[in-house]
């Protein structure tokens, strides 16, 4: 049964390489995009941390900034 699934009547190398290429492409794209997202989030947090009290208050008044800060801990 297992051998049959692997060899697929001699077509196994074609089928498995096509599926492997697809899944490796998915994984690569996912990790590249995730890395870019984490990088931007970390940059945002460090920039936010360097703001003085007044600027931080202004920045915090924007809802989206609060959302970014709250989501950073979830990544």
């Amino acid at each position, binding site marked *: 049964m297992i051998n049959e699934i692997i060899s697929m009547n001699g077509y196994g190398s*074609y089928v498995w390489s096509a599926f492997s290429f697809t899944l490796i492409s998915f994984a690569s*794209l996912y990790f590249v995009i995730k890395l870019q997202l984490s990088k931007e989030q970390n940059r945002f947090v460090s920039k936010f941390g360097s*703001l003085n009290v007044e*600027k931080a208050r202004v920045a915090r008044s924007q809802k989206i900034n609060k959302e970014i800060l709250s989501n950073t801990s979830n990544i």
Partner: protein
Amino acid sequence: MFKSFEPNKIFAITSKAPKYVLFLFIIVLSVGLTEALILSPEDYKQSHAVRIMYVHVPSAWISLGIFSCLALFSIGSFIFKNKNFSLISKSLAPSGFVFNIIALVTGSIWGKPTWGTWWAWDARITSMLILALFYLMYLLAWRIYQDKEYVIKITSFIAILGAINVPIIKFSVDWWNSLHQITSVNVFSNTSIHISMLIPLGIMTAAFTLFSLLIFLMKYNTELIKLKNKGLDRL
């Protein structure tokens, strides 16, 4: 008119959605892979090589669908001067490009046992290669040009010009002699593919669509945070 499209309003949704989409994608992909690799029958002519269809066809469909969306959002960006449209297009492009490459590579792998060759300058294959070049130009334009207004114009132009190629890809098998068979899956008329193969094809298409949605959401969030980082610099 497009107030609901404002990034500030939709970030609350787009920032939370990826984890749910990822969870759903893993479930649908697992079912799809089991169907495609184990449960679906082999073809009477192509034997097990037909299983490559379950990754090749959805990838081609989605890359075409995403490019059509790029073109529509680019037209929208031109007409309504809505910058969020170009942000959406920019976020869609990476997954569209990867799906296009997957379609070309898996098609090449499928071509060897079926047609006896890895590559042929067939109308559909060539037009898919041209689409990949348009995706590449689109992505490179965002990297090369720094002027925001200019890059939006250039990328919109590339997307609209590239969209001419989309119907050529779709109808290439009808207009020219091609190694590809004519369309087997039709939404508006009879589908010639057997239900035992149509179900795994549908599940794999759903899984791939979820993956492109996941990548889109993550990329869109990245672009929004990038904009907010620039906003903090200006404070």
